[in-house]
């Protein structure tokens, strides 16, 4: 049952509204204005002497689709707060972007048992910024290669739909960034973007995290807890490593996608949610479906829209751009005067296969920026493990011409055969060695070791399990 609080004595609505940071109005059950604050008067251009007693729509002059008071009526009937974006035309004949929030007011006594609170938030500045951001999708995602441009081309279209998206790509290719950019530029952008890693938690805990639980559902459930789906209501939920989701939960996820409702763990009341799902995985879901590890129906439900992020080795020319970008970034952050890479260092960096993709590249640059004491990053400033790999592949990879810049970067796109040599059979051994070295250096702390390696904790955990190092 909802808790109610009472303020002793009579409270003047105007006094209450005066504390609101946005234009606000209280309406009676007939949707006529009862009280407004000063912000409301300034925004609409109507003084309270005119506005009070008038049907609210005549004063708001909005486009929020409140024909015959439909929006107000719906809030009264359902009791659920409505948030609508639109605009108003104020008394100065100016159209202003507004986010309307209409919520129900209960009163304990008096002739009116119900009223409405309408908050009008001026979002014209936010809209102008969002418009600017929309025009430049790649503002925080760096990529000039044709494959990345193809991704940037489809992103605006995907942001404007409600369909589920499946993002695939190797670890460290920026699946999270793409998902967040799509969310931010979608109509749901003002609401929550909730990210959950399906491979990081045991099945029972994951179910509770996703769907929430009620008090007493299991030992330790001392209070109701809303799940990530509820928190992401009206927003987007990003399920990363969806390929690691247990089959039992896949069924529940499918039903949420179909019905837009679910039961929390131990709960008897169905919770309705309006959430867009973006899923990501580094695995081939199609292969998992064939192997029986992933439900086919869920695969098709998630795979409505699909983005594949190319690995760094396929992004011709981007390695050099990313190296320079991260070097500038870390040099600024660390307050160092590092300007560029020496030819020898660059040759090694451009020849490297980057199995950890951009995440690995960023961490290599961070390492270099920290270690370097000169203006140029030399070969000696590079992490030692790079040499082991390059040496193994050295006979097969031609030395790149380092000038001009773009051509040099283009030549780093080695042939598949060359890449096979770089990331061939001995890579397993090198990786094992890297893991052991990182774990030794971090005294067994896996989080620190993962950070050192430039991997996520899950990736490290998975590789430890795969190589039997646990």
């Amino acid at each position, binding site marked *: 049952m909802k808790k109610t609080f009472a303020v002793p004595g009579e409270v003047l609505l105007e006094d209450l509204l005066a504390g609101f940071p946005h234009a606000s109005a209280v309406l009676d059950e*007939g949707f*006529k204005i009862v009280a407004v604050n000063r912000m409301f008067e300034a925004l609409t251009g109507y003084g309270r002497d*005119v506005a009070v007693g*008038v*049907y609210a*729509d*005549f*004063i*708001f*002059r*909005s*486009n929020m689709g409140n024909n*015959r*008071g439909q929006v107000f009526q719906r809030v009264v009937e359902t009791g659920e707060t409505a948030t609508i974006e639109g605009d*108003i*035309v*104020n*008394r*100065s*004949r*100016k*159209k202003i972007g507004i986010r309307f929030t209409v919520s129900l007011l209960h009163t304990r006594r008096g002739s009116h048992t119900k009223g409405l609170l309408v908050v009008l938030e001026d979002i014209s500045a936010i809209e102008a910024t969002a418009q600017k951001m929309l025009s430049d999708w790649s503002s925080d995602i760096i990529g000039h290669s044709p494959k990345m441009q193809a991704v940037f081309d489809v992103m605006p279209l995907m942001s404007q739909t409600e369909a589920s998206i499946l993002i695939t790509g190797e670890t460290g290719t920026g699946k999270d960034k793409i998902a967040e950019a799509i969310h931010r530029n979608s109509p749901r952008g003002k609401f929550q973007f909730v990210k959950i890693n399906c491979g990081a938690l045991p099945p029972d805990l994951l179910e509770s995290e996703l769907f929430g639980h009620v008090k007493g559902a299991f030992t330790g459930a001392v209070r109701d807890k809303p799940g990530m789906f509820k928190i992401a209501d009206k927003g987007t939920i990003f399920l990363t490593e969806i390929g690691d989701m247990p089959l039992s939960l896949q069924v529940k996820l499918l039903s949420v996608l179909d019905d837009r409702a679910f039961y929390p763990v131990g709960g008897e009341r169905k919770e309705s949610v309006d959430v867009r799902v973006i899923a990501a995985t580094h695995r081939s879901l199609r292969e998992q479906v064939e192997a029986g590890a992933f439900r086919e129906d869920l695969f098709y439900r998630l795979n409505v829209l699909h983005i594949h992020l190319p690995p760094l080795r396929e992004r011709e020319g981007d390695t050099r751009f990313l190296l320079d970008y991260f070097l500038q970034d870390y040099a600024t952050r660390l307050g160092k005067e590092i300007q560029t890479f020496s030819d020898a260092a660059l040759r090694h960096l451009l020849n490297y296969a980057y199995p950890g993709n951009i995440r690995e590249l960023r961490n290599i640059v961070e390492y270099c920026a920290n270690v370097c004491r000169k203006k140029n990053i030399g070969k000696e400033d590079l992490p030692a493990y790079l040499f082991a790999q390059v040496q193994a592949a050295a006979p097969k990879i031609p030395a790149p011409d380092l000038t001009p810049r773009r051509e040099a970067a283009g030549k780093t796109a080695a042939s598949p055969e060359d890449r096979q040599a770089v990331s061939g059979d001995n890579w397993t051994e090198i990786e094992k060695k890297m893991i052991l070295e990182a774990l030794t250096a971090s005294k067994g702390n896996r989080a620190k070791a993962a950070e050192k390696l430039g991997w996520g904790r899950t990736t490290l955990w998975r590789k430890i399990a795969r190589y039997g190092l646990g």
Partner: protein
Amino acid sequence: MKILITTQRDFVAQRFDLTAEVVIANVENGQLVGKPRAIIMDRPSAEDLCNMIMEENIAIVICGGIEDRHYQFLTWKKIRVIDFIIGDYETALQQAIAGKLHPGDLLPLSRSDLSL
């Protein structure tokens, strides 16, 4: 002289750009001539409405909220705009014919506003 009123059911429409229905009345010597004509537009559009006002040789426009650019366009075309009217359109028309309607007028409602 022709008077155009942007309407939403029995009322002056809240906004010029969202109006899908207008009423055009002919007035001669301070008297209403014939029955006012109601026109339903294909879609709400301030630009289409401005064109219609020009084509119909309207002298006075009675409306609710209107954006400045449309207001400036109409006044530049020597059309009198009486805007931000709140009330039912019949009363607004009567007041306009009598020369008593002014921008921003809040008219006594002849019908219950709950019919909205």
